[in-house]
């Protein structure tokens, strides 16, 4: 299982699956899109809101992945970086699992500022962080395929992978979240919001822990 999960195809799959998963989590914003459509009495408001939420999520991914992309040029510290990233994700997961508290500053974001909201939520809940070990795994897998290269081309390659990971993940998130928001608005009505809302908090925290452990495991 470990090999399948850390192989290139498995890692790209993880990028997509985590995107679908983030999209379905109401905490990442799809009910906001339903609300926007109801307030403006137009379906197009729903798509605009989903786009704004997706953009915020994308920015958070890029914001977190790019520094790692830059750092990862330091081939000599590859292992340390992967261990560090794994530990950060693991700690975040444990923190959420143990404290079960929510950052209150999020409550002060204005309802209309969807991009900012989505960005902050993705950062604060570790959604973006969850992708880091997967991303580093991908860089590593590519590395094995391609052999050592010059720093400049490594850098370019790392950035391209980072952008691809962020874009693919966000696309998956927008598709699943958008589909759910659309179905709730079009067919199921508001009851779908409370009906589909599960407390993912523990699962979310455990996902972070698992991703962190897999990141660590792959580094050793």
């Amino acid at each position, binding site marked *: 299982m470990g090999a399948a999960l850390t192989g290139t195809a498995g890692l790209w799959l993880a990028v997509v699956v985590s995107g679908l998963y983030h999209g379905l*989590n*109401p*905490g*990442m*914003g799809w*009910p*906001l899109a*339903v*609300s926007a459509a*109801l*307030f403006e009495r137009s379906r197009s408001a729903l798509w605009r809101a989903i786009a704004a939420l997706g953009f915020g999520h994308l920015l958070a991914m890029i914001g977190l992945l790019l520094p790692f992309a830059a750092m990862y040029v330091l081939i000599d510290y590859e292992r340390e970086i992967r261990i560090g990233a794994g530990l950060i994700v693991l700690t975040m997961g444990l923190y959420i699992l143990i404290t*079960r508290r*929510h950052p*209150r500053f*999020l*409550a*002060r*974001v*204005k*309802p*209309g500022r969807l991009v900012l*909201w989505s960005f902050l*939520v993705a950062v604060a809940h570790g959604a973006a962080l969850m992708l880091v070990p997967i991303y580093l795994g991908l860089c590593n897998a590519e590395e094995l395929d391609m052999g050592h290269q010059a720093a400049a081309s490594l850098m370019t390659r790392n950035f391209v992978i980072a952008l691809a990971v962020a874009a693919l993940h966000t696309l998956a998130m927008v598709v699943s979240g958008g589909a759910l928001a659309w179905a709730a608005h079009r067919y199921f*009505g*508001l*009851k779908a*919001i*409370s009906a589909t*809302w*599960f*407390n993912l*908090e523990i699962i979310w925290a455990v996902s972070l822990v698992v991703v962190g452990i897999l990141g660590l495991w792959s580094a050793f």
Partner: protein
Amino acid sequence: MNVRPDPTFYPSAKDAMDAPAETVAFTLMLSPDFSQPDGLAVVDVNPESDKYGDILHKVFVPHKGDEFHHFGWNACSSALSPLTGHAFLERRYLIVPGIRSSRIYIFDVKEPLKAKIHKIIEPEEVFAKTGYSRPHTIHCGPEGIYVSTLGGGGEDGTDGPPGIFILDCQTFEIIGRYEIERGVQDKHYDFWWNLPRDYMISSEWGLPPQFENGVVAEDLLSNKYGHKIHVWDLRGRKVKQTIDLGENHQMALEIRPAHDPIATHGFVGVVVDTTNLEGAIFTWWQNDDGTFEAKKTITIPPQPADADDLPDLLKGFGAVPALVTDIDLSLDDKYLYVACWGQGEMHQYDVSDPMNPVLAGKVEIGGIVKKTKHPNGKEFGYGPQMVEISRDGKRVYWTNSLYSTWDDQFYPGERGAAMVMANVGENGGLTLAEDFWVEFPEGYRSHQIRLEGGDCSTDSFCYPSV
């Protein structure tokens, strides 16, 4: 924390209206002479039950002299806000402030018949952490539980303005003051908001020396009670605009925004107009440019009365004012109920057109002069006061006490606690239910009512009613 959202959280007011009817009500009991501890009564309001109208369970607190007044839930439908993403609180605790002691009780009512005290926040902690005193209205909002206060710091509560503070909705720890910029706001009473539109409206009663020992007639006649409403940038925690209703409109109390957040209007009740003794309701609304306005849309004239029938305070006027002390709006935003505590009337206005309310129904019961009896033949002391409407809008409950010292001024002598219910007709109209009558323990008065699963003055909805 639950795995699923609490079934009593509703995305929209419409969803709440379709929910099952309440079977129990929670009513506050206060000891007006502070000789007994205040308490919470769990009342059977299920018409199928053979204990219909009985108090099924009572919880008395360990202290005396708290004076219970208003209260609210730890969590309501606002937990489903798409902005919070964490809908897993339980509607389980009632937050009950002592308006006189500044002590706050948290009751656990998960099993109503075994309701018990979960936590007590001592007054010293409220003073130390907020600089406020005399906590009052409770609403669950974006940053936790918001608690309005009527007093500032110091012995008589006049050291600094009163305001709102925030309680953590899980631990019930006091987080701190809400306001960043309060503008000219120097008095406080009620507050409520439109969560998706991010505004809050607050109102003004008076400072503690103006109410704790009874209404101060000189202050009232010189228009020194509150007469402004303040519009807040809710999440920015700043006053954006202050609307003066006119200084003769004394005591702007209950704020009732439309429940459907797509609407941008609401109401505020004014106890008395000192120029003509009228009671009044103002409709307030938001303009397209974001500014607010308010206009008087209901007036209730005083009723001529013989001086012999009037308490000392009113003898000189030869009339009894309506004294609009509480108002409440049904979840469909259609009917506004207005308690005329002085005259002994409960009015029902059709506010489908909020700028042109129409009187649709009326019940007479109690009153300074009329002293109308309940249809079951029993005396109803004082007048209709705290009013609560069932979620489906079909039943309206109310009690009869305003505030211990004010009760004694307007209605001298002990008149007893009451809680009654009226049925709402298909097309409006209001009729007292003859078979619903609650007997309270001796020496107590009754105040605010909360209904199991939420009611028309607790829940804030985040999605439009469609």
